[in-house]
């Protein structure tokens, strides 16, 4: 699609998709009789993970009804925290005429099989639609969080900021405020191919449930993130994922080593995907979806039952500060030299 046509399409959609329409629809269909969330006992924190497959939406109401359906299903289980999958923020791209197929192609095709031209078109699309995409994402999930009186980790979205592209996850409070953002720190795969800039810090969010961290997609490969979040007292880690982000079992290794509860929410993008929505504890699987289609899995988690972290496994502190930590710096310098050479 030529750039001019893309610009026109985004402009037209921005007229038909407005914050007022989003809020009005959700308020009409998404009211909840739940009491406001004032406190959650650490032994009785309820979490839910959404799994869903991307599909082209017929219009704004189709998109909103699906997000509302999953949020309500999770809230009906009593969930205080609801996690949506990776790339949830991109799904409204299918509202732009002619863009639904491109979105599904990019999400469902392995990166090594994607033609460079397709990636370029997708990159242009994300840049062109950034305004209305972010607006839909923000208003949809802030309203859902407010109406359903729950924390919502709204998956992830690509955000342009100061001429840089970030892969970002937002956490919304039951007041409807976006209280925390976490950028993907080690972009690989699609994010790297689109030129995503790595995030700058790993911080958990302060919530009524305790400290909640967010690890996006393939960042799960990096034990460092879980270690940092655990040292910052995060006991719950929301993990928006996409299809088979990492080998089965690696998440359990992270849950054990952290230790923390992992709320895994996958976007089901391939026919033979293995990942399911699940809530993982250091002791095992607390809850998991069995079927491979859109569903919610929920579980009560007991933060008091988290084991104490193993105190560094007795590793010599001199090694940590004189060999381990400098190894990152030395590696970065060597890589820069090789790239410059």
């Amino acid at each position, binding site marked *: 699609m030529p750039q001019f046509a893309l610009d026109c399409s985004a402009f037209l959609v921005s007229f038909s998709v407005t914050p007022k329409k989003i809020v009005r629809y959700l308020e009409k269909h998404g009211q909840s009789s739940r009491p406001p969330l004032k406190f959650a006992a650490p032994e009785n924190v309820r979490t839910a993970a959404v799994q869903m497959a991307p599909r082209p939406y017929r219009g704004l109401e189709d998109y909103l009804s699906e997000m509302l359906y999953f949020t309500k299903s999770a809230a009906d289980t009593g969930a205080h925290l609801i996690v949506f999958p990776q790339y949830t923020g991109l799904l409204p791209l299918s509202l732009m005429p002619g863009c639904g197929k491109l979105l599904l192609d990019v999400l469902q095709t392995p990166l090594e099989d994607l033609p460079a031209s397709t990636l370029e078109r997708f990159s242009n699309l994300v840049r062109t639609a950034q305004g209305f995409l972010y607006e839909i994402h923000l208003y949809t999930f802030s309203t859902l969080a407010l109406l359903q009186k729950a924390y919502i980790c709204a998956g992830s979205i690509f955000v342009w900021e100061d001429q840089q592209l970030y892969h970002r996850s937002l956490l919304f409070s039951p007041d409807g405020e976006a209280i925390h953002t976490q950028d993907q*720190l080690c972009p*690989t795969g699609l994010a790297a191919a689109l030129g995503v800039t790595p995030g700058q*810090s790993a911080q958990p969010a302060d919530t009524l449930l305790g400290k909640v961290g967010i690890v996006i997609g393939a960042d799960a490969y990096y034990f460092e993130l879980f270690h*940092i979040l655990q040292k910052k007292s995060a006991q719950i880690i929301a993990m928006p994922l996409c299809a088979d982000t990492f*080998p089965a079992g690696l998440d359990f290794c992270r849950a054990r080593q952290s230790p923390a509860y992992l709320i895994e929410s996958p976007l089901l993008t391939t026919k033979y995907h293995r990942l399911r929505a699940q809530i993982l504890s250091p002791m095992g699987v607390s809850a998991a979806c069995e079927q491979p289609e859109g569903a919610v899995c929920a579980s009560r988690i007991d933060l008091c039952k988290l084991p104490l972290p193993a105190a560094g*496994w007795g590793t010599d502190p001199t090694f*940590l500060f004189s060999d381990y*930590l400098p190894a990152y710096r030395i590696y970065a310098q060597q890589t820069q030299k090789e790239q410059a050479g």
Partner: protein
Amino acid sequence: MEPLVVEILPLTRAPSSDAGLVLIEGATSLIADPEAVRRHLLTCASYAKKYTVCLLSGLFLLEDALCLCLFGPDGLPIDRQVALCEPMPLQGRTQPGQETTILDTPFGRVFLCVDEDIRDQRVLRTAALKGAGLVLSVRMIDVAEDTVEELYQTAWNTAQTQNLYVISHSAAGCSVCCPAPLTRAQDGFLVRRETNIGRFILNFDRLDEVRQQLPLLDALNTEVFLHHQNELGR
């Protein structure tokens, strides 16, 4: 690079002619007596020289340090690695090491992972950042504790997180873990210890291909991790 043929044998048996690395069958308990250590190391040296193979020693105590040593095909020790994490049974009796030593071998860069070091990913990350493509781990862990779950948490976790081969040798047997895409079943196990296979082949060219498709080290955000060094160092 030529594929590496690894065999697990008692020191009384000769390796195959194409073997490049030998691990000693049953050598997973600690040799503490100084005279026994001396005899063990001499035996390893002479075996390596006689059959022109690289040979991994058993765990031994030397100068109050828990060590592993890799001998080269010339019978000389390439280097030794001192345990960085003091195992519980030896607490107060040994001095932990302070750096990871990466060995240059005919089959690439190797890290010798001594006993409990396999449990701390920071140790393995250091080895990976220094260029290791193969980790040789020997543990004197009790058989009752050496469960499949323990293997997943240690050797398998290391192979997936650091994107390299891990040979894990303990009393329960020998397992070989690798990045999941290297295996047909995508499960990250090249050899499971239940199979009691005494010979296997490591293909480093395939490892390089997988690393190119999934460049975990290249995507490492060193800036952020150094920013959080207080947390990572605890």
